[in-house]
């Protein structure tokens, strides 16, 4: 069951468009039969050298971003393969929200089911946030799911859209499978027709 109410954190910027799920977690790590340890392989090909040592210039390996829980990514984040391993890797690493101008459908669904908030902002806010991470990497922003706002360090509140059902599930910790199972009678009736 996934929960999310609010979060205040620094941001890790990754200004690349169309980051697909194979870049989030390469296919060779999909042979696992549990969800454990996925965070270690997040962005593996960008994050590590061939010998397994961290690539110094990759943003996740920079000290000033250590511990940040919000990822700021380019347009169309999470496209490609349907693997839920992508949000497992992101949450396993410690991310609780991703901000972009758009998300691929399957990724967005998968993220919401794992308490990882996909936040859509307009192009201007998107640019402002990237500028912010460049000027003050240690600046924090605040996400409030109930109010559906992101508060910037200058106090400006930016609204973001969120599906009402997903919002309720995350705020109240509604178990989606439990919700589905309440329709047992209707499902049985549907099957009988």
């Amino acid at each position, binding site marked *: 069951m996934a929960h999310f109410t609010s979060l205040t954190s620094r941001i890790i910027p990754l200004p690349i*468009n169309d980051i697909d799920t194979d870049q989030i977690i390469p*296919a060779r790590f999909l*042979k696992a039969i549990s969800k454990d340890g996925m965070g270690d392989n997040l962005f593996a090909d960008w994050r590590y050298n061939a010998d397994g040592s961290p690539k110094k210039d990759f943003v996740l390996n920079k000290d000033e971003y250590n511990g940040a829980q919000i990822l700021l990514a380019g347009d*169309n984040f999470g496209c490609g393969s349907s*693997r839920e391993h992508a*949000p497992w890797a992101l949450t396993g690493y410690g991310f609780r929200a991703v901000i972009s101008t758009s998300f691929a459908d399957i990724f967005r669904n998968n993220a919401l089911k794992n308490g990882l908030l996909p936040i859509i902002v307009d192009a201007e806010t998107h640019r402002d946030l990237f500028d912010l991470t460049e000027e003050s990497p240690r600046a924090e922003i605040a996400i409030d799911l109930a109010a559906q706002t992101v508060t910037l360090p200058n106090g400006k509140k930016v609204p973001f859209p969120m599906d009402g059902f997903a919002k309720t599930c995350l705020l109240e910790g509604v178990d989606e*499978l439990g919700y589905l199972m309440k329709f047992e009678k209707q*499902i049985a009736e549907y099957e009988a027709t």
Partner: protein
Amino acid sequence: MTPPLTLFQKVWNSHVVAQEKDSPAVLYIDLHLVHEVTSPQAFTGLRTRKLKVRRPEKTVATMDHSIPTHDPSLPILDEIAAKQIAQMETNAKEFGISLYGMTSPHRGIVHVIGPELGLTQPGMTIVCGDSHTSTHGAFGALAFGIGTTEVEHVLATQCLLQKQPKTFEVKIEGELQKGVSAKDIILALLAQIGIGGATGHVFEYRGSAIKNLNMEQRMTICNMSIEGGARAGMIAPDDETFQYIAGREFTPKGEAWEKALLRWKQLPTDDGATFDKTITLNAGDLVPMITYGTNPGMGMKITDHVPDPDSIKDESQKLALTKALNYMGLKPNQPMLGQRIDVVFIGSCTNSRISDLRLAASLMKDRKVASSVRALIVPGSQEIKKQAEQEGLDKIFKSAGAEWREAGCSMCIAMNGDQIESGQYAVTHGGGGGSHRKDHRR
């Protein structure tokens, strides 16, 4: 009188079990395809909650992603993959699901065997933990990829919570020129709309050029719908569809077939039905395409030159193209024809069916693969492999110097050991194409 409806709306409407205000629909699923990679955590979830699979007979499993494509009598050397494959066997047995496993003559890529066995039928809702599930839309089914949590939902309830997507008409009129294939049609569409261009929508491919395609070509187009960000892609069923599915193992027979036909003939989009978006392509303008970058939206006419980042105004697009060309080791304005290649991969759920292999064989007959090139031919299913061998295609491939392998996803997802080495260029038939997977260089 009911208002005119699209093919998508008809299939959607007939599968909504319930819908509460401000909530997603509870959508009934007719066929759930399962494979070894995206299902183990879902079965673990069922065990934790002490749940059964609600309708095992509507659930079909196979192994395709992490299995090796070498001689099946050899052991699986990758221990983690072997464990995952064994887990699929355990899960299928414990939950009573039919499995086309390692030794099954019907094993193959999940999106190849569904249609081959006649499991895929018009008007159905079909899901699988794989984005290329859209392939089955070629039969007029609503078919889409889901995550592992949703796999668990479908296993437990045979239903999914879904928000209704919008509709996107792709009209392709006219006649294709010689040498232009289904893959060229979809790559041309992707090059126009971009890889996120259809997010939140379901494509319906229509028009005379689509009508003229056979089922295998239609599957190639629907397969890559997801590469445009679409939830699914559909083509209305017609006589070509009915002819393809008639007599297959799981298709209705006798009176049930006649009844099904009547139902299926009601599915095509009504005259006057409207779509949320429309795009029209002229089939006669289409030419063979190739991708030069790191995603399937970076496609161009095969005779064109690689685009120049300096000619692009949008800063983020310029950066993306610069990065892609850097990764690919290509220069702006260079032609792709004449580019040295190291690996050729023919296979994947996009293009591994018998007609694809026949075409490949016709080009390779009495010729040799260059000594510096590795060529892999990976049939989509063991059935296709058998058929190809009966036709002698395997001999053509082998005598040309290509590797003739067992069915599977192979180099397309590249998680089974079939991989391109760093710095190599590969040309592939695959549908996806993240920069770390295929379509050229690693």
